[in-house]
């Protein structure tokens, strides 16, 4: 058994408007809004690292869960924008939480990282104890690499999200997940060392538009639930138009998909958990209600996870 106990998040203070980023890559604010649903995003300070962002989200999550760092059995950190090739940020986050023996794992997966992290944590927590899953990205340091590419620069923002997965209690019980990977598309979305991010946006959208709803539908069918029965979909905030397409494919209203991409842009592996944290601050999952996570990203890696509201 595994439960979702709490979410946390951190967004840097600096707001970068469409007008500001658009001026740097030769497009206007309205165009950015139309193609992505994004109005603004956050950029971290130069002296803020991925570890700094991850730490803030971790602290927020632990505070909300009322769990001490010393109680953690493991920390998983997903990030595609880590400053170092190795070690990744996971051990540094643990160190700054005051831990020096807790096992940590880095997942350099970008957008689907948090989903894979929660799925892995839900399987490991029975033997390891509570696992803190973090998605943290400083995408600004990547999109600003020259030459800045318009289709990439307008999308991304910085931030971090976290989720505590507990073996014994929480507001929702993890029911199941469906994860997939297909390396045939590795070249369609990639970040090589010291290079700009390369993205075949058409391929990403084509594949994501099909694969995300298919993964969700397969999972729902296995658990004899309909998309209409799901209380909230918490999906990777890649593009509002993609979220709309997934909702359309599942034949549910778009507002069942919680969205904050308008204000924070695409924060890659962090986005799903930033959305979850924001959703959880003003919403509750009643016992028996279904929550569905979904994500798609570089690899390609994609999938979905179902959780059911439990008696806390």
């Amino acid at each position, binding site marked *: 058994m595994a439960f979702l106990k709490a979410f946390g998040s951190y967004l840097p203070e600096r707001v970068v408007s469409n007008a500001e980023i658009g001026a740097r890559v030769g497009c206007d604010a309205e165009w950015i809004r139309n*193609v992505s649903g994004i109005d603004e995003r956050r950029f971290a300070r130069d002296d803020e690292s991925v570890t700094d962002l991850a730490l803030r989200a971790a602290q927020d999550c632990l505070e909300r869960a009322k769990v001490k760092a010393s109680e953690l059995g493991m920390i998983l950190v997903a990030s595609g924008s880590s400053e170092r090739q190795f070690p990744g940020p996971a051990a540094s986050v643990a160190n700054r939480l005051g831990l020096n023996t807790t096992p940590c794992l880095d997942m350099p997966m970008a957008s689907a990282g948090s989903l894979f992290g929660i799925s892995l944590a839900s399987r490991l927590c029975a033997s390891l104890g509570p696992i803190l899953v973090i998605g943290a990205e400083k995408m600004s340091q990547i999109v600003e690499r020259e030459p800045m590419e318009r289709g990439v620069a307008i999308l991304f923002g910085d931030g971090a999200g976290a989720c505590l997965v507990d073996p014994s209690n929480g507001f929702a019980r993890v029911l199941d997940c469906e994860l997939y990977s297909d390396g*045939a598309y590795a070249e369609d979305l990639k970040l090589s060392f010291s290079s700009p991010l390369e993205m*075949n*946006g*058409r*391929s*990403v*959208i*084509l*594949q994501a*538009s*099909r*694969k995300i709803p298919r993964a969700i539908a397969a999972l729902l069918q296995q658990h004899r639930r309909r998309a209409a029965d799901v209380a909230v979909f918490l999906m990777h905030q890649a593009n509002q*138009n*993609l979220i709309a*397409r997934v909702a359309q494919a599942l034949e549910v209203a778009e507002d069942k998909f919680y969205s904050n991409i308008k204000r924070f842009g695409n924060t890659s592996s962090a986005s799903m958990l930033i959305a979850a944290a924001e959703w959880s601050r003003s919403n509750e999952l009643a016992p028996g209600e279904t929550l569905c996570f979904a994500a798609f990203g570089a690899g390609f890696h994609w999938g979905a996870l179902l959780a059911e509201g439990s008696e806390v």
Partner: protein
Amino acid sequence: MDNRTQIIEIIRRVAGKEPPAAADESLFDSGVLDSFGLQDLVTELEHIFDVKIPDGDLTPRKFESIERIERYLEEHGK
């Protein structure tokens, strides 16, 4: 109605724009289709031509122009 005429009609309907005059002209570079329009186009092609386009065939290049779409359907259509 031949395949090319049907393809042109589908593009016109999906994109809400006039397809390029030249069959080998890129639907993307000409501004007729964007990424989401391409997804709609593929869905319509599957429906109208009663063909299942597998994910592995779903590359933008294969559906980049009227000519390429026509060729794909000739090779994979019923």
